[in-house]
């Protein structure tokens, strides 16, 4: 990649982070939880976006960012108050800024009309005197410094330049060195330099921080004055400089008298520069600085490689452990004890490596306020989004897939959950609805909750729809929980309410499916008139899985523990045959289909008697439950997931593979496909035989 392209890529990556910070900051200000540091951070974010945009010549982006920055600077300096209306405008400006960044990234032209209108709003409350202009005119800000003084009358033949230089000690204190000026002057032409050291004290009285020397330099007349001045661009008034053309007057012994120059900032600001030192707000805490913990950025591939290796290590360790047990070595032997320590260390390494990939869910949560604003604007409902637990960490691969389900749940909560302002007021609630998005860790999983204080699920209506669509029998007796969960059934869509917000042809069943694909679960609880809460829980990583090791037709398989609700040994009396191949199991009064896993995978032609085996009660994406028949359960184990697609190819009914402690490959069952397939047709899925 071209180095500049790489830098550009970095810039856009950084923009994403900055825009996230910007929005977070503005939201904090809106809630009144922000302070002056929040304002600074918000300002910095826009400022950095602008800085980079300038470097790459994204003019529209620069222009808009500049207006935004100016408004923020007013806020920062206290010229404008953080009024709700202003913050709201700034939130919109943040959205526009994000759009401009996207446009710059894609090389498309941004919506300039929208940019202009928001820019106008931003500038509205500004003092009329403050014009919105590009300030990027001069390359060197201290420059050019114009030194004015009384010029002697020009003679017909130009005389050489006389440059007098008297550094003040402040000049040296700012990192300048007189030798550099002399060197530069020497480059302009033949220079005759005189050192005046009459102020130099005896050595024992010399103060190394003081400036005692000055110089007089004669330069050829044809040198351009501007080029002489340029050399002193940076130095400002820390060095007394006079540039004259004409006869040399004898140097006086009072050097301050040499220069009576008025130093003026030019050309844009013709006022006199105050020579006052400004008190600094921020004192450097050097000790604290040295103690700050550094971070490094690591290529994701390297981390993934490490995770792979650690996975191998875990498998290898399990294999050795099994061999040692098999060889009958005593548990108290040094080998067994050493092995136990190895196991402990291996687990710790695994946890630490997983922790490297863990990231806070903040990056996903940060995208949501904008979504909520847009849905709010589209539906006319007043919504306040409250987020909690943004720092909760989860594996990067999981984070990437969280965005869609959360988006859907939020859309659903606002579109279907919340009432309009009038309706809310009638119900005695504040006009503004609250949607809460929260994350936390619970028993080794990440739990994400989306709750609203809306009307709750309209159970009679949901029930009517389910009956009308043939999803449940009219006489079905449902608990509240069961009724609520009807909305997850495929084909259930509160058609009357399908809008372009929650609509898009995606129902809660799809949300549920995508969550289950990640090994997660979703549930809903609702109180009429008080609101609903969607709770989804996901594994913290997709690299390992808690599995139940089972035997199917004499081979070892792993069933994901998340899919298994319970395991039981069925009584013959609970099994009802409904055909030569099919049967159902009665569990506490409910009937669930029995699926012989071996038959489903094509390992044998006829099902075994379920009563001789073990039944795993599982839940599938279809929302229904099923009882999977296996021969035996060997226990629960955390297994390292190996992709079958990456190493072989996709196999129906199989989600992935793993390597067991004895070194054998075991396939991980894809419970959903097995049930779905069984529900559709009785043909077994061939080619799923384990090696």
């Amino acid at each position, binding site marked *: 990649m071209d180095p500049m392209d790489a830098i550009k890529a970095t810039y856009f990556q*950084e923009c994403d982070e900055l825009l996230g910070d910007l929005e977070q900051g503005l939201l904090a200000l809106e809630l009144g939880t922000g302070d002056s540091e929040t304002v600074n951070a918000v300002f910095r974010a826009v400022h950095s976006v602008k800085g980079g945009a300038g470097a790459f010549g994204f003019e529209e982006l620069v222009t808009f960012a500049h207006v935004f920055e100016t408004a923020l600077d007013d806020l920062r300096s206290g010229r404008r108050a953080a009024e709700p209306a202003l913050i709201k405008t700034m939130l919109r400006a943040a959205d526009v800024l994000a759009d401009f960044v996207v446009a710059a990234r894609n090389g498309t032209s941004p919506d300039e009309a929208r940019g202009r209108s928001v820019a106008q709003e931003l500038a509205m409350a500004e003092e009329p005197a403050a014009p919105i202009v590009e300030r990027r005119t001069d390359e*060197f800000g201290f420059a050019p410094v114009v030194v004015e003084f009384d010029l002697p009358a020009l003679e017909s033949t130009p005389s050489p330049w006389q440059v007098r230089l008297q550094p003040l000690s402040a000049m040296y204190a*700012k990192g*300048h060195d007189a030798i550099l000026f002399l060197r*530069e002057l020497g480059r302009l032409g033949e220079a005759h330099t005189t050192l005046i050291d009459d102020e130099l004290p005896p050595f024992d009285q010399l103060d190394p921080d003081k400036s005692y020397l000055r110089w007089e330099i004669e330069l050829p007349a044809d040198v351009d004055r501007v080029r002489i001045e340029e050399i002193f661009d*940076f130095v400002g008034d820390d060095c007394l400089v006079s540039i004259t053309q004409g006869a040399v007057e004898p140097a006086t012994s009072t050097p301050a008298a040499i220069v009576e120059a008025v130093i003026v900032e030019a050309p844009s600001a013709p006022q006199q520069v105050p020579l006052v030192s400004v008190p600094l707000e921020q004192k*450097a805490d050097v000790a604290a600085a*040295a103690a700050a913990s550094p971070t490094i950025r690591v290529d994701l591939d390297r981390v993934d490689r490490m995770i792979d290796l650690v996975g191998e290590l875990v498998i290898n360790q399990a294999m050795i452990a099994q061999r040692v047990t098999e060889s009958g070595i005593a548990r108290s032997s040094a080998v067994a004890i050493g092995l136990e320590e190895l196991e402990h260390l291996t687990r710790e390494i695994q946890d630490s490596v997983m922790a490297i990939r863990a990231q806070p869910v903040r990056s996903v949560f940060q995208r949501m306020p904008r979504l909520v604003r847009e849905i709010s604007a589209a539906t006319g409902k007043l919504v306040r989004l409250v987020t909690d637990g943004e720092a909760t960490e989860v594996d990067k691969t999981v984070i990437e897939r969280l965005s869609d389900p959360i988006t859907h749940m939020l859309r659903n909560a606002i579109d279907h959950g919340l009432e309009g302002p009038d309706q809310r007021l009638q119900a005695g609630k504040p006009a503004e609805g609250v949607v809460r998005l929260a994350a936390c860790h619970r028993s080794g999983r990440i739990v994400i909750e989306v709750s609203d204080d809306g009307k709750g699920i309209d159970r009679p209506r949901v029930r009517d729809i389910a009956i009308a669509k043939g999803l449940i029998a009219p006489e079905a007796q449902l608990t509240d929980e069961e009724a609520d969960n009807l909305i997850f059934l495929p084909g259930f869509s509160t058609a009357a309410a399908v809008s372009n917000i929650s609509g898009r042809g995606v129902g809660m069943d799809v949300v549920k499916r995508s969550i289950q694909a990640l090994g997660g679960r979703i549930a809903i609880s609702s109180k009429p008139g008080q609101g609903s809460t969607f709770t989804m829980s996901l594994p913290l990583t997709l690299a390992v899985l808690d599995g139940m090791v089972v035997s199917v037709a004499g081979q070892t398989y792993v069933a994901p523990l998340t899919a298994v609700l319970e395991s039981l040994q069925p009584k013959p009396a609970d099994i009802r045959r409904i055909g030569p191949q099919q049967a159902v199991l009665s569990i506490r009064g409910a009937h669930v289909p029995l699926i012989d896993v071996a038959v489903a995978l094509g390992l044998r032609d006829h099902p075994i008697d379920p009563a001789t085996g073990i039944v795993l009660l599982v839940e599938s994406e279809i929302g229904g439950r099923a009882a999977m028949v296996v021969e035996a359960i060997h226990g629960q184990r955390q297994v390292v997931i190996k992709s079958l697609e990456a190493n072989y190819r996709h196999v129906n009914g199989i989600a992935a593979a793993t390597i067991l402690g004895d070194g054998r490959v075991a396939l991980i069952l894809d419970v959903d496909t097995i049930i779905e397939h069984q529900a559709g047709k009785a043909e077994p899925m061939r080619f799923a035989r384990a090696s």
Partner: protein
Amino acid sequence: MTKTILTVDDSRMMREMLAKVLKDAGFVVVQAEDGVDGVRVLAECSPDVIITDINMPRMDGYGFIEAVRGTEQHRAKPILVLSTESDPDKKNRARAAGATGWIVKPFNAESLIGAVRRVSA
């Protein structure tokens, strides 16, 4: 002799860009991501020129320049400010803190290198 430049900027992109421009011109580049980090780096190395941003979290450019000027080792190091700001008040504040020069972003490579050469003995 090869000169070492310390760049202090909270923008990774800006750091990368500065590093590229300076490395292409034959300088050795050390990076820090804000004032606090810059102070930490200065405890370990001694650059010939320091280029710093102004708007940074934790410790801004003014604080950083003051901190550098307060050290025995680096108090006379040339420090160039590289900022999108070109407000005279801010420049004066930087000068008061001890900045050697001021370069306005976006910079072009030549003038940046020129400025660095002009302040490095």
